[in-house]
């Protein structure tokens, strides 16, 4: 899932400084699960913002909340259309994709991010989320014993480990497991360590963000023809 974190109140107050009616929009999908931007968090942020604004002499600003099922799909955003016209700005509690989906759907409405989107990851233990995938567009997990060297090695090495690996930890942070130690240990457990004797050729980064923003197109699913949005 996509993992995010709430922005600090003063930053949000500053972003909405030119507005008098602000709609906070939560999202019921990933950011609900990572406790950053669901219905409950939208309620908490709404209450916090109203108080913060009053304390800064801006008690006349209206802040209301609502949450939709999924912010990254027009079909779900549509139910907001009527409501949005009563406001002069939106603060989205969706991930960066949700924020931009709202902005595309409402071209005349300023849309601000209430969250800092962090990464694609997993729930490691209650209250702890960890980054696992960088969306490189050319998944190599099969070659690396199921552990991603792009995301979990701080230097994105394909032929690791580097000389900074100590006692299973990465040299950039003693709390961080060395991705290559993890790859090694799992390769041993799977009995495939010998595969790592060959040098891995350079990765093709063009399938990732380095190749520009990407689209995935399934023509068999495009009922209204190919989407022409920029």
């Amino acid at each position, binding site marked *: 899932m996509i993992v995010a974190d709430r922005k*600090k*109140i*003063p930053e949000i107050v500053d972003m909405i400084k030119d507005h008098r009616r602000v709609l906070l929009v939560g999202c019921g999908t990933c950011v609900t699960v990572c406790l950053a931007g669901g219905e*409950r968090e939208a*309620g*908490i942020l709404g*209450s*916090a913002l*109203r*108080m*913060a604004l*009053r*304390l*800064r002499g801006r008690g006349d600003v209206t802040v209301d909340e609502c949450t939709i099922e999924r912010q990254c799909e027009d079909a779900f955003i549509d139910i907001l259309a009527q409501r949005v016209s009563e406001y002069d700005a939106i603060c989205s509690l969706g991930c960066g994709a949700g924020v931009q989906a709202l902005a595309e759907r409402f071209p005349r409405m300023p849309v601000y991010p209430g969250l800092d989107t962090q990464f694609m990851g997993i729930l490691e233990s209650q209250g702890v989320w960890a980054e696992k995938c960088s969306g490189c567009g050319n998944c190599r997990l099969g070659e690396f014993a199921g552990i991603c060297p792009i995301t979990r090695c701080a230097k994105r090495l394909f032929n690791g480990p580097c000389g900074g690996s100590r006692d299973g930890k990465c040299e950039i942070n003693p709390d961080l497991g060395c991705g290559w130690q993890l790859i090694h240990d799992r390769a041993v457990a799977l009995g495939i360590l010998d595969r790592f004797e060959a040098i891995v050729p350079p990765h093709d980064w063009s399938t990732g963000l380095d190749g520009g923003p990407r689209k995935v197109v399934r023509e068999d699913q495009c009922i209204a023809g190919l989407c022409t949005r920029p």
Partner: protein
Amino acid sequence: MNDEPLILAFCCHYCAYAAADLAGSMRLQYPDNVRVLRLPCTGKLEANYVLAAFERGVDGVIVAGCLEGGCHFLEGNLRARKRVERVRQLLAEIGLEPERLEMFNLSSAEGPRFAEIVTAMVERVKRMGNSPLRPDRARAEEGALEMSRQAEAMLEGEKR
């Protein structure tokens, strides 16, 4: 005009609520600034309840749960303490003194301690002054009562 601070106490049914009751039946003297809201366990406390209280203009909030290790639901009070800590950070971001919110632990037999806690909190809030968010005492009081009524209705609903 009533300038006295208004404190809302989120009290666990198994300890602090009983202790408050005991303080009453022992006829202990403590300031009448506190309104009690009964929770089935402080583990039920959500950040938005506390924020709602401050938004309605109460001057201070007490969260009172069982002694550590003594929670009826094992660790509700420990979770509440962490949530209270997080809300205190949020209050600082908002611009309200985090000291307006405090968690205490006590047992149901500690009527006198309940009286002490309330007295200490009232004194603390008096030193800070009333909340800048308080509309007027009557409306803040109404807000606090409305919240405890809702909490009671929720408890009733759960029994059914």
